């Protein structure tokens, strides 16, 4: 299905320049503000040729986008598709708050360009639940109160789902090591370990 997207952010994306300029002109008139004059030809103009068409599969839906190649997957999710469950904690791949799943593998969405993931299956925190039924990892985070402020939680959960998919974690020590890229300033760590362990053990038991 081809979805009509709603343009959230102006400028960085196509059409933006014009709409913005029109709006700015309108407001200036309407408000009677004396802002300094904008030169008619900006020295650093937006380049309309720099946009590319990209088709992305996000949470099982096809998304047709026109974006600049340099736009990160995180910014596309947040600014373009209104999928603001994925958080921007540092924008440098150092905190894990932006973790999403690409073909089941966990990645920092701030460190990757959206156009690199054409054809891939991207899953964000919004795509984990089946309707009103939470994913087992989401349910475990609720059951064990594995968060406080909640800001790192989408990244923690996507990372934990990726960890389970990887199949390396056997012990609490493994969980600690493999989850150490997702920081939680509230220090809800003991409960995060408990939640991830529960899902891992459930998985093991189910396999037996």
């Amino acid at each position, binding site marked *: 299905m081809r979805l009509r997207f709603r343009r959230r952010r102006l400028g960085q994306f196509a059409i933006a320049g014009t709409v913005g300029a029109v709006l700015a002109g309108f407001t200036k008139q309407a408000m009677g503000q004396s802002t300094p004059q*904008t030169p008619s030809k900006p020295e650093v103009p937006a380049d309309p040729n720099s946009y590319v068409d990209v088709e992305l599969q996000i949470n099982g839906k096809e998304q047709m986008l026109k974006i600049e190649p340099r736009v990160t997957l995180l910014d596309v999710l947040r600014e373009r598709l209104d999928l603001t469950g994925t958080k921007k904690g540092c924008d440098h791949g150092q905190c894990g708050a932006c973790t999403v799943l690409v073909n089941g593998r966990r990645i920092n969405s701030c460190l990757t360009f959206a156009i690199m993931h054409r054809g891939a299956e991207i899953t964000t925190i919004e795509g984990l639940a089946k309707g009103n039924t*939470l994913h087992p990892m989401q349910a475990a985070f609720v059951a064990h109160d594995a*968060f406080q402020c909640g800001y790192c939680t989408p990244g923690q959960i996507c990372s934990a789902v990726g960890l389970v998919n990887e199949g390396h974690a056997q012990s609490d020590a493994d969980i600690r090591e493999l989850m*150490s890229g997702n920081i939680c*300033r509230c220090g809800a*760590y003991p409960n995060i370990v408990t939640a991830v362990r529960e899902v891992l053990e459930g998985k093991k038991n189910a396999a037996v």
Partner: protein
Amino acid sequence: MTTVGQRKSHESATGHVSGKALYTDDQRQPIGMVSLYPVTAPHASARITHIDVSAAYGVAGVVTVLTAEDVPGENDTGVIIRDEVLFPTEVISYWGQAVVWVVGETETAARLGADRVVVHYEPLPPILSIKDAIAANSFQGQPLVVRRGDATTALQAADFCLTGEVEMNGQDHFYLETQASWVIPDGEGNYQIYSSTQHPTETQVIIARVLGIPNNRVVVTCLRMGGGFGGKESQANPFAAVAAIAAVKTGRPARVRLRRSQDMTLTGKRHGLLGQYQVGFSQEGHITALDVDLYADGGWSLDLSPPVLLRAALHVDNAYYIPDIEVRGQIVKTHKTSNTAFRGFGGPQGMVVGEEIIDRVARFLGLPPEVVRERNFYHGEGATNTTHYGQEIFDNRIACIWSQVKANANFAERRIEIAHFNQSHSYKKRGLAITPVKFGISFNKTQYNQAGALILIYTDGSIQLNHGGTEMGQGLHTKMLQVAASALGVKIDRFRLMPTSTDKVPNTSATAASSGADLNGQAVKDACETLKARLAPVAAKLMNLDAPEDLVFEDGWIYSRSYPNDRIRFEQVVEQAYNDRVSLSATGYYRTPNIYWDAATSQGRPFYYFAYGAAVSEVEVDGFTGTFKLRQVDIVHDVGESLNPLVDQGQIEGGFVQGMGWLTMEELVWDAQGRLRSDAPSTYKIPTISEVPEHFHVELLQRAAQEGVIYGSKAVGEPPLMLAMSVREAIRDAIAAFGAVDFVPLASPATPEAILWAIESVKARSGAKSGVAESLLVSPTV
């Protein structure tokens, strides 16, 4: 059925795990919203000689540039005094200070525009350390003195006397959600602000002041915060203010959302602090006299430094009775970020000084530090159970908690085991320590100890709950729902907890000082009592009863105690109340009783009560690398009759982890030019999941109801942070095992580098009694 005291999970739990819980910058953006980006100063101290913003307009998408001339009202966001210029025009006070802000259609356009703004500076030499500030006589605010007895005379009379100093680093809040504010103008001169702020009222007042309009034209709403920890008590204000100016100038919605490095560079942190002391004590380790100077690094402006310093001065004693004591405090002014509230609000710094002194005394006398701690506890009645600011500790629970956690941790046996381990290992040493926490609860400033609530019942029986507190992960909203459900006798799912907003509950205090549940809980309960008093006669009439005072509200039903089988549904009473023209909305209000403070004498009863805890930590230190592993932690903490044990346990664990970060790994590094070099998670290390001890036992003190507090509970936000002092002291204990010395100086934070230096120092002095310490010894009158 009551919901208070249950392990209820966070009210936004499902929202958090599904990504649907909205933070300020997650909302659906209004059309035409502009973004702001700052032009920052490349000097810590400089004179501004020239600002030329014209080139910014050459960048596509730049809407306008905000300078001091665009401020309609006051160009200042100071909260205690007016010393915090928003757009500096004359001097730069710290590296990275925002000079002007560029407004763009996008953040990218604003950033490219900011690159083109030209500012000329005349650099000046910066003051970057507490000691340099003292030398340059660079102070701000007023000096303070808190004293009891005569420390000078008592020091002269003491068996032993030691002098020394301890300096500790600040701490970045590192809330995962950086500062964010949206300002939406309505075109009629009113402004709706969405801000990640712990203090919506103050953000409102500051915006109104900066815009030069009355407070009633500004509504500030806080949906929730992705962490606050004190860093959004006053620090949200300037960013909300510049967004508001952008909204005024452009007539469009405006957004400020800081990048991580900007947030760390621009915002204030926990105060670094220098303590210089002279302590007198007896052969048995009883401290008889203490004279302390505290110097807090306020940074470039005053912000909340005076109450932070006061709390430090009022917590130097921690849990210890010191008969003759004088604490002097000063705030130094440096060319660094303006330091601010951070969980504990100066208390932790004061207590670290106190614990340093205790350890110093213990090692000098060759006594185990825990023995010296025990011997100095507040105890008994009267003077020995009264603080140096004249407040009697009427509910002293220190000894009880202390013995409980010692037993839980098998402290005595492990002391012996560790001694054996250390004898048989040359390069790895283990350390064990137990430290207490006594933390005063209430805002020091008496007038902040008030709160309001607003409850709206609709005719279908659904309810909106408003209160003045903000949610930053501490579970306040969850607790308030529990309080309201219990007080009104209905189920929690009947409520919608509303975002904190200044048009619902006005003139609120910051959600700070651990006071959120204490203050707002009482206000919520008060509103519920008002509504029940109105609904009871309606219910009585419906049930043909004479005595409404006999009615019980429980679990969505109302019944008479005398005839419990004859009951009526809550919503039926609500509907009848509407028909009878009985008001279904009510405000609630609370002010903490019996607290007072005389600032002139630094005496009074500033705290309604004290929160207590104690922690035992065991570490293993590697003598080659200086790294340590936290092997086990045992905690007993007093939260009164917990409103929600699940939430409270999370607060204790999280507070401990954050305190451990401050004391052992989070190192703020400013270079010689005053640049903050630790401005990202790659260079500023906060605790990760792998640093949490595997054996981490937290126990809540049982049968601990606190009289006069909401449902017998106690504040829990800040006190657990200081339990982490046990980690610092355990590291010191392990370092001491590398030699035989009577003094183990340890820098804070105790990073591997600091630990390694401390081990080297211990090894070098080992065996030579009072090696380095000798120079610090003052007239031992043995």
